[in-house]
């Protein structure tokens, strides 16, 4: 499994977690993002993610490099899904293994925050009743 990946296929958190395993690791931390039913007081049926794929993959590799400069992590895996997703499905998974837990927690937190802030991705919510709207978002960070 490639360590960073943008995919249309459903994400298996178990496989992402297994991909960072190894005998040197003292542990692994994983963040799994899922599609929430409630948004701004409305009921969501699903989301459609759009991505500028080539730039997003480059940004994910940059995030991995930044993590490796800051923490002595062993393996890192980041997978983000795009296309149509239903409520409850996994949109993103980040897993980090390290010798000791502190750096794995910090690195995982840093990576998911960087994914949210720097990846060129957008999501359109599909509400109950059929209305659709782009999620407002935040200006992309350099």
């Amino acid at each position, binding site marked *: 499994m490639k360590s960073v990946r943008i995919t249309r296929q459903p994400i298996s958190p178990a496989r992402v977690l297994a991909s960072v395993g190894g005998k040197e690791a003292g542990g692994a931390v994983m963040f799994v993002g899922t599609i929430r039913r409630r948004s701004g007081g409305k009921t969501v049926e699903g989301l459609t*993610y759009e991505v*500028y794929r080539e730039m997003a993959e480059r940004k994910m590799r940059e995030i991995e490099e930044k993590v490796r400069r800051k923490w002595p992590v062993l393996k890192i895996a980041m997978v*983000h899904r795009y296309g149509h997703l239903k409520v409850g499905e996994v949109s993103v998974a980040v897993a980090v293994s390290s010798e000791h837990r502190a750096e794995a927690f910090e690195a995982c937190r840093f990576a998911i925050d960087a994914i*949210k802030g720097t990846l*060129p991705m*957008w999501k359109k919510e599909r509400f109950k009743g059929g209305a659709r709207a782009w999620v407002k978002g*935040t200006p*992309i960070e350099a």
Partner: protein
Amino acid sequence: MIVKVLYFASAQGLANLKSESVRLKEGSSMKDMAAEMLRLHPDLKSIERTIRYSVNFEIADSDVTLHDGDEVAVLPPVAGG
């Protein structure tokens, strides 16, 4: 010179296209490209202040000089994760 411009999310809806080739004067900056884009697609003025741009996959300020064949992307506020 000609640059390739990609439109995403709400910008794609307002411009009503995914990508196009835009002809600019030699030595044009990102700011010149943005002005030409708004001339071609006036509806984008409604989100102009929230847009950021990338050139060849890197976020670019308005004073960046463009070159023939560059890939410029029009990036509304993002919402990954």
